[in-house]
C-alpha cells in the first residue's frame, strides 16, 4: 500500500509539469492572438479595443498569474473557449474523446489478438521457416509509416474489394474497422517482435532445460512456466506502446475522417485554435501518465518478488 501512495505522490509534480508546459507553449504561440483574431475578421480596430480584448482574456497579466488563473479554471473543467467556434473547449474535447478511446481500445485488442499468438509461435519455432516468415512480415510492417498502411488498406479493402467504407460514416464499429486495422498492423509489427524476444529469452533459461531433462512436456513448460513469467514483461511493453498509439491516432483519424480528438487536434492546428490544441496535448499526456501508473501498479501487484519487498537484480 505504501508503494501505491508513493507512486501517486510522484505523479503530482509530473502533472503540474505537464499543465505548465502545455500552458507555456500555447501562451508563447498565442501571444498576439488578439491581433490575429481581428485580422481574421478583416476589420481594422484601434489599439484600445485590442487592449480591452486582451484584458478580457487576461492576457495583460504577468505570466504566472495567467497560469494560476488558467489552472484554477482547469480544476473547474473550464479550459477557455475555442477561437474558431466560440464553444467551450473542455466540452468539445470530452464529446470527441469516446470515439478516440474506442479506436484505441479496439486497436490494442486487435494488436494483442494478432501479435501475442504469432510472437509465441515464432519463439517456439525459433529459426524454423515459420519464424523466419513472421520475422520478415514484422520487418516489412516496421518499415511502413502507418499512414501509408492506411492508404494501402483503403485502396485494397474499400476501393478494390468494396468491403468497408472508404471514410467513416459516423462513430460505429464498421467504420472503426479500417482505422483499427491500420493502427493494429503498425503496432503488431513492433509488438510481435517484442513478444518473441521476451518468450525466447525465457525459453533459454536454465530451468527450462532442467524441466525438459526431467521429462516435463513442452506444452506444460510453455504455458505453466514460460508464459507465466513472460506475461509481466508483455503487459508492460504493451502499455509502453500506448504512447505511440495516442500519437498515431491523430494521423489515422484524419485520413479516415474518424470523428475523434486526433482529428479535432489536427483541424485545430490548421486553424491555429490554440485552446483546443492545448486541451488535446494536456489531456493526452495525462491519459498517458495514468496508463503508465496503472501498469506500474499492476506490475507491482502481479510480481511477488516486488510485492514481498525482495529487491530485484
Amino acid at each position, binding site marked *: 500500500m505504501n508503494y501505491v501512495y508513493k507512486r501517486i505522490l510522484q505523479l503530482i509534480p*509530473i502533472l503540474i509539469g*505537464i499543465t505548465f508546459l502545455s500552458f507555456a507553449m500555447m501562451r508563447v504561440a498565442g501571444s498576439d492572438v488578439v491581433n490575429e483574431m481581428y485580422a481574421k475578421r478583416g476589420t481594422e480596430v484601434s489599439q484600445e479595443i485590442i487592449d480591452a480584448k486582451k484584458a478580457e482574456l487576461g492576457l495583460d497579466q504577468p505570466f504566472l498569474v495567467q497560469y494560476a488563473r488558467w489552472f484554477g479554471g482547469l480544476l473547474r473543467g473550464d479550459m477557455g473557449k475555442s477561437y474558431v467556434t466560440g464553444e467551450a473547449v473542455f466540452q468539445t474535447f470530452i464529446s470527441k474523446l469516446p470515439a478516440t478511446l474506442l479506436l484505441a481500445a479496439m486497436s490494442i485488442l486487435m494488436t494483442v489478438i494478432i501479435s501475442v499468438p504469432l510472437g509465441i509461435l515464432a519463439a517456439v519455432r525459433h529459426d524454423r521457416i515459420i519464424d523466419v516468415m513472421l520475422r520478415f512480415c514484422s*520487418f516489412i510492417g516496421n518499415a*511502413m*509509416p502507418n*499512414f501509408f498502411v492506411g492508404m494501402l488498406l483503403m485502396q485494397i479493402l474499400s476501393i478494390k474489394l468494396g468491403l468497408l467504407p472508404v471514410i467513416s460514416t459516423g462513430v460505429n464499429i464498421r467504420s472503426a474497422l479500417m482505422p483499427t486495422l491500420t493502427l493494429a498492423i503498425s503496432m503488431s509489427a513492433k509488438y510481435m517482435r517484442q513478444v518473441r524476444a521476451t518468450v525466447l529469452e525465457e525459453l533459454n533459461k536454465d530451468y527450462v532445460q532442467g524441466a525438459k531433462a526431467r521429462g516435463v512436456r513442452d506444452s506444460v513448460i510453455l504455458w505453466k512456466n514460460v508464459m507465466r513469467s513472460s506475461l509481466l514483461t508483455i503487459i508492460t511493453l504493451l502499455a509502453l506502446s500506448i504512447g*505511440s498509439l495516442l500519437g498515431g491516432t491523430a494521423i489515422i483519424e484524419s485520413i479516415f475522417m474518424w470523428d475523434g480528438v486526433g482529428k479535432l487536434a489536427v483541424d*485545430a492546428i490548421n486553424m491555429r485554435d490554440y485552446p483546443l490544441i492545448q486541451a488535446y496535448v494536456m489531456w*493526452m*499526456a495525462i491519459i498517458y501518465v495514468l496508463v503508465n501508473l496503472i501498469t506500474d501498479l499492476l506490475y507491482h501487484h502481479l510480481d511477488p518478488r516486488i510485492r514481498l519487498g525482495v529487491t530485484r537484480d
Partner: protein
Amino acid sequence: MREPTVRKQNIHHNHLKTRLIIFGTLAILLVVCSFFSEYLCPYDPYLQDLGNAKAAPSLAHLFGTDRYGRDMLSRVIAGSRTSIYSTLLLVGFITVFGTIAGIVCAWNGGRLDSVVMRISDMFLAFPGLVFALAVAAVLGGGVQNAIIALAAISWPKYARVARSQTLAQKETVYIRAARLSGCSSSKLIIKHILPNIFGPVLVTAMLDIGTMMMELAGLSFLGLGAKPPVPEWGSMLSDTRNLLATHPWVTLAPGFAIFVSVMIFNLLGDTVRDWLDPRNAR
C-alpha cells in the same frame, strides 16, 4: 544460456561482417543520392506539363507523372534530399545534444543532474507524436520546425542512455586510477568515458533513424513539415492521396520510397546493434 561453439561464433561473425558491408553500402548510396539529388533527377521536379498530367509509368517517365504533369521519379529523387537529409540532421543533432547532456549530468551529479533529469521526465510524460504536433503547431509549418519539434521530444532518450552509461563507467577502477593520477575531468571524459559509452549511443541512434524518418514524414503528411511544392515524401503522399484509386503510381512512388529507405536504415541499425552488442544477436 548456452555458449555457442567457436565455429558457430566464427560463422556468425563472418555473416555479420557481410551484412554490415551490404547494408552499410546501401545506406551510404541512399545518403549520397540524397546529397546529389539535383544532378540525378532526369527532369526538373518543379516543371509542370499539364498536357501530360497523370501519365502512366512509361520509359520516358518511369514512375509516371502527377496531376500537374511533373515527373514522379524526379520528385521522388528530389524528395530524398528533404527526407533523408533532414532525418540524418535530426538524429545527429539529438545524439550530440543528448549525449553531452547525459555526460555532464552524470559527471557533475548534484542539483544540475536532478534538474535536467526532472526536465527530461516532463518531456517523456508526453506521448511522442502528440507533443511534436503541439510544438509544430506553436512554431508553424516548415521542415526546420518539424525537425525542432521531433528533437524536443527525442533528446531525453539519448540523455538517459549516455547518463546511465557514464555513471557505470565513472565507478570503474581504471577511471578512479586515472583520476587519482591527476587526469583532468575534460581529458577523462573525452579520452576515456566517450569511447566507452559510444557503442550504446550509436546503437540507439542507428535504430532511431527509421522511426524518425517515418515521424518526420508523418508531420509533413499532416501539413506540419515540408510545404508543397517542395518535394518531400510525406507531403507528396498527402498531396496525392485522392489519386490513389485512379492513378495509384502517383501515390505509391513516394510511399515505397519511404518504405525502402526506412527498411535499409533499420537493417543497418539491427546489424550495428548485433555487431556492438553480441548478446542481442538471436
